[in-house]
């Protein structure tokens, strides 16, 4: 392995993120408490800077340090996705963080550190680097999930996340070691030739089963989804938003890279198990979302179902599938964070996450209700908001491969999802507001976050062409089949 200085230049966004995280930590310690509000500004400014910096790397297609790290359009796309999510969450989290008495700087530092972990996960070119990224992300999230340590629910969520996170890491590691054992290399790109030599040995297939399970935990696919509702409910809502969106996308990024780049030869073997996982994820996720009365739990199950839809792109095993997957992931970022951002505001104001307390929101705070409604419609995939286009593409991708039944399951379950999203819409628009209900005031930074989500959901629904082109090109350059 040769280490070239030029390789570091291509990792500038990661390095800058690391510096930002450490910098925020230090600033948080140094700045007096009454001026801590500036930290959120610093975080957003730093993240936006890195976001802009990332534009320099659009046309890179490089393998760094002998394949350990890869900077290709796929990596760059996911960097954008994570940074976008982090920016919106940082904006929406400001009100919540201001209510904290201490550790305000640390909150943002951890947020940025988790982002770094995700970026490494997406760019990792070998299994060990991938694992390091995963752990950086997971351990950071453990702290964030249990951030309100005096609140029992938050602490419980933290403990559950530790145990299940550790277990999933162990499972994944077991799978990685089996794959390593059979290929003799940890470099993802080098595996294909070795696998053609060794063939599909049963133990290697077992390794793949473990990998599916390990990644399944991260994207919260059924039956590894049980952690998500409990933890989503218990964690501070900004953390939940970030966890539901970015952490899932990061797990997905690694999932797709390992399975499409390292294991394409074994596709006939792993496809069965992935298809089963995808189908039950879509079915169970949507069904369980129906009886939920807490909006965070409802969104948690809906995000389980969304993970299932996104996996359609992997199942399709084509560049169209990858493109659709990327496209849906980024739209999911806007729609889901938008919905969670409204939940944050409502919770801060009314102290409740119950759907029945959203009754009449359209009359007291029409803007919040509109954002929530459009984001939910996008999640449900109703035209003309953005989710329709990407979901349509995901269905097309599997139908193209002859898996019509799977698309059907998806379509049927989309219908079910309309039902539970409509329950929230019904409460907001047809319900009568509580007598003491007042218009909810929304701080400037949260408003920016809401507007970003709203505009994205509408704009990409009405005019998806540029983003769609982009996602499809990335998909094609990543997996040109």
């Amino acid at each position, binding site marked *: 392995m040769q280490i070239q200085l030029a390789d570091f230049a291509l990792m500038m966004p990661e390095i800058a993120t690391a510096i930002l995280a450490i910098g925020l930590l230090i600033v948080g310690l140094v700045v007096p408490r009454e001026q801590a509000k500036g930290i959120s500004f610093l975080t957003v400014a730093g993240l936006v800077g890195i976001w802009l910096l990332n534009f320099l790397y659009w046309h890179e297609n490089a393998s760094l340090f002998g394949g350990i790290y890869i900077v290709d359009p796929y990596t760059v796309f996911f960097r954008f996705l994570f940074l976008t999510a982090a920016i919106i969450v940082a904006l929406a989290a400001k009100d919540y963080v201001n209510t904290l008495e201490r550790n305000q700087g640390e909150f943002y530092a951890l947020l940025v550190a988790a982002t770094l972990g995700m970026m490494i996960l997406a760019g990792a070119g070998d299994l060990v680097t991938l694992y390091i990224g995963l752990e950086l992300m997971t351990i950071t999230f453990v702290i964030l999930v249990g951030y309100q340590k005096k609140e029992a629910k938050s602490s419980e969520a933290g403990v559950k996340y530790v145990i299940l996170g550790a277990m999933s890491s162990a499972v994944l590691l077991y799978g990685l070691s089996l794959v390593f054992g059979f290929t003799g290399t940890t470099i993802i790109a080098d595996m294909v030739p070795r696998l053609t030599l060794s063939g599909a040995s*049963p133990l290697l297939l077992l390794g793949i089963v473990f990998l599916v399970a390990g990644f399944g935990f991260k994207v919260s696919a059924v039956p590894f989804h049980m952690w998500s509702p409990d933890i989503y409910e218990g964690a501070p809502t900004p953390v939940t938003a970030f966890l539901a969106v970015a952490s899932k996308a990061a797990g997905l990024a690694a999932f797709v890279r390992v399975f499409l780049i390292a294991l394409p030869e074994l596709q006939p073997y792993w496809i069965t198990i992935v298809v089963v996982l995808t189908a039950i994820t879509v079915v169970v996720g949507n069904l369980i979302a129906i009886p939920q009365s807490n909006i965070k739990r409802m969104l948690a199950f809906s995000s389980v179902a969304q993970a299932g839809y996104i996996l359609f792109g992997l199942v399709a095993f084509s560049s169209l599938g990858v493109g659709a997957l990327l496209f849906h992931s980024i739209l999911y970022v806007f729609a889901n964070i938008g919905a969670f951002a409204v939940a944050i505001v409502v919770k801060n104001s009314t102290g409740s996450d119950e759907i029945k307390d959203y009754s009449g929101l359209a009359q007291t705070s029409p803007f919040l209700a509109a954002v929530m409604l459009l984001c939910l419609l996008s999640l449900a995939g109703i035209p003309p908001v953005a989710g329709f*286009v990407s979901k349509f593409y995901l269905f097309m991708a599997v139908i193209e491969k002859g898996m019509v039944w799977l698309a059907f399951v998806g379509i049927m379950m*989309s219908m079910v999802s309309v039902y539970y999203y409509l329950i929230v819409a019904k409460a907001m628009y047809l319900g009568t507001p509580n007598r003491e209900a007042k218009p909810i005031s929304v701080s400037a930074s949260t408003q920016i976050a809401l507007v970003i989500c709203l505009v994205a959901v509408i704009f990409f629904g009405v005019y998806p062409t540029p983003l769609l082109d982009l996602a499809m090109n990335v998909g094609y350059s990543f997996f040109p089949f």
Partner: protein
Amino acid sequence: MLLIAILLPFLAVFLLPFLVPVLQRKVGWAVALVPLFLFAYFAGFIPQVAGGEPVIVNYQWVPQMGIDFSIYLDGLALLFALLITGLGFFVVSYAVGYLGEKENLGNFYSFILLFMGSMLGVVTTGNLLVLYIFWELTSVTSFLLIGFWFHREISRYGALKSMLITVFGGLAMLAGFIFLYLITGSFNIRDIIAQGSDVVAHSYYLPALILILLGAFTKSAQFPFHIWLPNAMEAPTPVSAYLHSATMVKAGLYLLARLTPALGGTPEWFYLVSGVGLLTLCYGSFMAVRQTDLKAFLAFSTISQLGLITALFGFSTKLAVAAAAFHIFNHATFKGALFMVVGIVDHETGTRDIRSLGGLREYMPITAIVAGVTAFSMAGIPLLSGFVSKEMFFTASLALPMAGVAQWLFPAMAVLGSIFTFMYSMMLVFNVFGGKSKDPSIRPHHQGDNWSMLWPPVILASVNIIIGLFPGLVEKILVLPAASGTWGAPVVEHLALWHGFNTPLLMSAIVILVGFLFFRGQQAVVSFVEGVQNHRFNLNVLYDKSLVWLNDVATWLTVKQMTGFLRDYLVFIFLWFALSVGGTLILKGGLNLTTLDLSPVGPYEIALALIIVGGALGVVFLPTKLAAILSLSGVGAVVVLFWVNLRAPDLALTQLIVETVSTILFLLAFAHLPELKKEVVAKSQKLVNMIIAGASGLLITLLMVSGNATGLFDPIIADYYLRESLPLGGGHNVVNVVLVDFRGIDTMGEITVISIAALAVYSLVKLRLGKRGNAE
């Protein structure tokens, strides 16, 4: 320009918030200008389109998805566009009189305009995906309009029901469109029609057909998906007249007509479409007879008339298509007027119950005449437009393109359905307006006709008379261009009142005669219908049950699974592993059990293993925390003995230290935790847990053994270290050499990390102590 015209209703919505406060109740007049203008605008296209030249405009939208916003205005689209805008004008004008000051007028007119725009989008677009988008928009606006009086539970129920059923159909239709795309590679309707012969021959034809028909049938309320339409009658009457009779429910018919050249003409199409249509015709008219609510009456009547038109599209002959186009026009006029009349009756008397109404002709004579004309037209009485199209329907049913049982069954069904249609049309007129008032307390609020609401139905009724006498008026400009657009080639048929003495005339005579007899003996017929169709089992019950069932399943899944206990979650996760890992091991032949590469197992090892098993069981079954912890550390201690036995003293030592430290930590931490709780778990569940736990353990063991037995790389890495540790590292203890020489940098890194961690712990402890000192 054309695009702006189609989007005009959407644009007009933005003006409403400014107009409503100024004009108040009069705002309806301003709104009515939109459809009036559009009607005139579309009418301007008649000469060009009737000349056989469709208007085609293309706009790029999402090229990757094959979505272009192309507009395709041929005779068929034009007929619908004129109906939508023309009736739109009448309905909006009618609503001005119908809706009171206190209603939420802004919402009402916005929804109506949104609906109008979506409906225009459905019929004018040349792209299936755009059609789908507008199609769903009509469902959404219909949902909002049905739920307009949302404080009423029954309105909300009806709104949700119609939404769920039509959205379900819409999604099925979308799947069908995707199939069409897979066959033809295009979403453009004209491209698909151009490849019609390939479509019909393709193996995806049948699934595509069924899915698209699901969309059409749910939207057009065909049996058995008709159940949403009667509940949709909870909407204000103008809405019922417009959406649920004249336009939206005809979107399904439009889809059938539009895709006839691509999908029609096959036996599958013929039997599915005309079979369902005729069944709906008979069932709808049969059910209408027993209704007591006037609007429910009209709802079932609409269902049955839609069935008639569907059947005509199913026949797919030139004559049938022309008859369908003509009947779509006629139905829109007479049914729209009938709804408005019922709205007037409801508005003036406060009830729609047919059992308590009667003799209204004395109070509102003109209204009674309008009702009579339009109902007679629907019944197919000569000299009215409905008669002409019904004659054509009978003629078409006698000239079917398919041989077999349908040759006599379908005409028979046509006659049967028409008999009941005749009967309920008579009931509608004579029971409500004729006879004497049955309930003296129910009478109109004032004497005379309410002209503010009556003039639209009067115009519509006169259309029925004029077209009935002179069908040639619309033949060339509307009906035949629409039929040609449906057929895909010019259609030449002659519409006329008098065709001479022939079989269709005989059929009409039978309908009128038997219908009249049935009407005279209506008590007997109604009680017969009630006997056949009772409340205990019908399709509505099925719909309600399936919603309840869905909720129950979801709740059951949640209760079973999302208990909040990690323990229960692990059961599911381990079950998955047992199935997937075990399945792979067995199915793919992964078991590789050999004892060749294992160390010999002696009595000493067996004894140690037994102690470990005992210790592990002790952890599970011992009652107190302390005993469980000690039992666990006992397991660790035995592992140490294993290392000793395998002559690895350094490992044994390390393990001993780790075990000791962790036991101490355990004890320290556990002292702060509550006592172990005794939880009562059902025996069966315990058994399941035991089986899953046992299977997981067994699997891991098998996996270990198999993994050890599979040596893939030769020479194995252990040999390398054994060979090279002395020459390269200069040490006999291989483990030590590996740690400090071969992986020296790693070790250094680890030491650094541990040192930093130790420093951190130290500073934390110091901090805590310092605080305490301060407190003291």
